[in-house]
């Protein structure tokens, strides 16, 4: 009954190993978190600025010759591409947005606002756009900016095959410099959202003839790149000759690369960085009431989409999708999966962020287990239905799947969950094939994008394989009419139609989170983190 010395040491060793394992697990839990923000982008080929409503703290009106102090240290994912034509991630866009300038920005109320273009006018037929450009703009290398640079940039964007802008700008028939600081765009067909397209993430103006945009940073933007250490950080200093008076107000911005959102949040707590914008709901909650850090969240139109293939069984029976809609408790999902942050979904991609187009009367019917059961029985699933729900492993999607499994079980739908790494889920277009899946969609500045790529017949990413003549006609009307009333009506009809028979469920719209050190003020969050504007941010610390 006694332990020999050897055995005792053996026990100690095993115990020690086990305890170390537990400690490691706990430690990894403390330092790692889900690497995705609820607002994250599935694909960011389109321009994406919207939201940006709540200001963290209000900035003061800039002096004409502001003193530039303080360096803002921002945590972001590492960047891969630096040539604006190839950028896509939040961090790549964030860097480019401060080195280069867009012609037009989109403000927090989804209105186009001037940047390099100071004013613009549209011809009556909607086919010609004439933009006046700002005076006194110079490139970081000292040479003057002109309309030729804009023409060159847009010709590059619309003629380089294999780029997202090649398709986006295929409607442009000509770009001309109609003056030293005036540029005219001619379109083949009217496009009511053309100004938004001009603000596409990739549409940053490069100097005419640039050949090394993938290795150098010669922009007109508010900051100049001082040092770029791939996979470590990028250090930028204020452009003293920036054309907007009084901006930027910071002496510099350091973008420090973090692969892990939880690590970035820890760095923020520890004072190694000043701003973090990509984090899960859980991480965001953990930052509430932390002294010295101000948190804020803004609504976006990003959402998780639950979609059922409608071109084959079981989704080709409209009663099945209706039953699933009736089985879903959207409010509970918002509260549990998103902890109440964000907005309640209405099964359409036209969310409340699009104030002018969102129809508040388009509300999906409340949860009704009995009605759902009856519909399933009518559709031939009286004894229940078994189906696999595919979901990427990022954000709150696995949680959403777990909640849906429980909610749908009550109506006799037996869900088997298959969680896949995001790269696997989207790789080889498997996500377009599965019957039932969850897909995260990022926020866009206007709703037409979702209809055109996700829901019209034969669309590139029509993952639900939805094909509805009435819907297609409405989407076409909304996307081409120059009559705003007609568009509002079409969007309203679309929302009602999707609630009634769209093979999609959108339970919530994400919030965009941000947390910044109290040493800085003047930051407005943006629905697309990459388009956050640091020009008005100023240092107020010691």
């Amino acid at each position, binding site marked *: *009954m*006694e*332990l020999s010395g050897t*055995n005792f040491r*053996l*026990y100690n060793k*095993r*115990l020690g190993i*086990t*305890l170390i*394992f*537990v400690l490691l*697990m*706990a430690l*990894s*839990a*403390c330092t*790692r*978190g*889900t690497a995705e923000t609820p607002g994250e982008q599935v694909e960011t080929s389109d321009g994406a600025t919207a939201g940006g409503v709540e200001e963290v703290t209000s900035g003061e009106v800039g002096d004409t010759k502001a003193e530039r102090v303080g360096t803002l240290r921002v945590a972001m994912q590492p960047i891969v591409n630096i040539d604006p034509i190839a950028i896509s991630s939040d961090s790549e866009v964030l860097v480019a947005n401060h080195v280069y300038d867009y012609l037009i920005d989109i403000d927090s109320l989804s209105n186009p606002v001037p940047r390099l273009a100071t004013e613009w006018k549209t011809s009556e037929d909607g086919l010609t756009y004439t933009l006046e450009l700002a005076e006194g703009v110079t490139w970081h290398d000292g040479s003057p900016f002109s309309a030729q640079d804009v023409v060159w940039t847009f010709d590059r964007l619309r003629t380089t095959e294999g780029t997202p802008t090649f398709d986006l700008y295929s409607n442009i028939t000509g770009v001309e410099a109609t003056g030293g600081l005036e540029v005219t765009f001619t379109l083949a067909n009217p496009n009511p959202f053309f100004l938004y397209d001009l603000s596409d993430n990739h549409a940053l103006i490069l100097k005419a003839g640039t050949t090394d945009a993938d290795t150098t940073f010669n922009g007109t933007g508010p900051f100049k790149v001082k040092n770029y250490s791939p996979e470590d950080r990028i250090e930028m200093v204020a452009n003293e000759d920036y054309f907007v008076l009084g901006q930027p107000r910071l002496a510099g911005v350091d973008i420090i690369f973090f692969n892990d959102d*939880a690590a970035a949040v820890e760095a923020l707590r520890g004072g190694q960085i000043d701003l973090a914008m990509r984090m*899960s709901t*859980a*991480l965001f*909650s*953990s930052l509430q009431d932390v002294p010295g850090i101000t948190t804020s969240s803004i609504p976006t139109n990003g959402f998780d989409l639950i979609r059922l293939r409608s071109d084959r069984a079981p989704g080709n029976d409209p009663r099945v999708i209706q039953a699933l809609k009736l089985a879903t408790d959207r409010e*509970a999902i918002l*509260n*549990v*999966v998103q*902890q109440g942050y964000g907005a309640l979904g209405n099964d359409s991609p036209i969310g409340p962020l699009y104030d002018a187009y969102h129809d508040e009367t388009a509300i999906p019917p409340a949860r009704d287990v009995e009605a759902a059961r009856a519909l399933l029985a009518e559709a031939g699933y009286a004894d229940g239905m078994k189906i696999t729900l595919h979901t990427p*492993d990022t954000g709150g999607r*696995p*949680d959403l*799947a*777990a*909640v849906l*499994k*429980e909610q749908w079980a009550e109506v006799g739908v037996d869900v*088997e*969950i*298959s*969680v*896949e*790494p995001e790269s696997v889920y989207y790789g080889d277009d498997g996500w377009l094939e599965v019957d039932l899946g969850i897909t995260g969609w990022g926020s866009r500045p206007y709703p037409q994008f979702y209809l055109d790529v996700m829901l019209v017949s034969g669309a590139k990413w029509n993952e639900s394989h939805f094909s509805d003549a009435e819907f297609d006609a409405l989407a076409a009307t909304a996307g081409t009419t120059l009559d705003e009333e007609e568009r509002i009506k079409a969007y309203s009809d679309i929302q009602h139609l999707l609630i009634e028979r769209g093979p999609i469920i959108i339970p919530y719209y994400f919030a965009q989170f941000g947390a910044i050190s109290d040493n800085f003020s003047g930051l407005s969050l943006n629905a697309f983190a990459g388009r956050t504007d640091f020009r008005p941010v100023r240092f107020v610390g010691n």
Partner: protein
Amino acid sequence: MPVQSKMSLTPDSPLSVNPSRISRWAGAFHALFSTKATALGTTIVLIFVVVAFIAPLIAPYGVNEQIYSDARQAPSADHWFGTDHLGRDVFSRVLYGASDILFLAGLGTAMAVMCGTAVGLLSGYAGGMVDEIMMRFFDSLLAMPALLLALLLLGTLGPSRNSVFIVMVIVYTPIVARVVRSVVLSVRSKGFVEAARLQGESIEWVLFREILPSVTPTLAVEAALRFSYAIFLVASLGFLGVGVQPPSPNWGLMVNEARPHVGQLPWALFFPAAAIAIVVIGVNLMADGVKRLLQA
């Protein structure tokens, strides 16, 4: 008493209750409680095995029952281990998780031990080219860390409970086979094996009746250790999200799911992690008892 002694020489007679077998079980039972440490280990394992069977009877809530109004609650009288971010009772899930992990790890270990024993016996006894080819093949499998090999296999098979089982068998069979083979090599040339062979006994007889008993002590200890590693493996794969799929109450998966919320809901992470640790410690302590028993 010649009749009685004859009876005792036919241990497999179904008509007789063999007193030596009873005493052997009693001895085993005694050995498993022979020291404080093994007694503790055995008790822990027994408790978890019992829990695994009666979890549905004693768990206060359903395994995946989501009570939205109770979400994110700290441990209390209603929820002994608190609730997770989806409003599931952590205590109930830890109880249910016992069957998930013990069943899968136990089945995987048993299958790996069977396969490994068969292969090890054959390979060691046959020797020559067969042995060479087998062992070099296993060497190539063993060259990779178990977890890495498991991840590779799961990447091919796709994540599911069956895949985890298959992976366990593939990962652990070579290890068991090597251990068994090493013992076979040492007893192959012993007199009693030679004698059996010269008597013209069949190869099955020699392998399973002459050699296997010599392997059993080592094999039992190896099986017990494998079992503890298997628990780790099932938990690790669940934690990495490539094993058993949600909403299974797999402890590793529970730790993974609780990880983003650890700042606010530490209990949702702590209890499943503690369960893994306690079971693994228990199995290890018990394995030592098994070794003691078989060496005695």
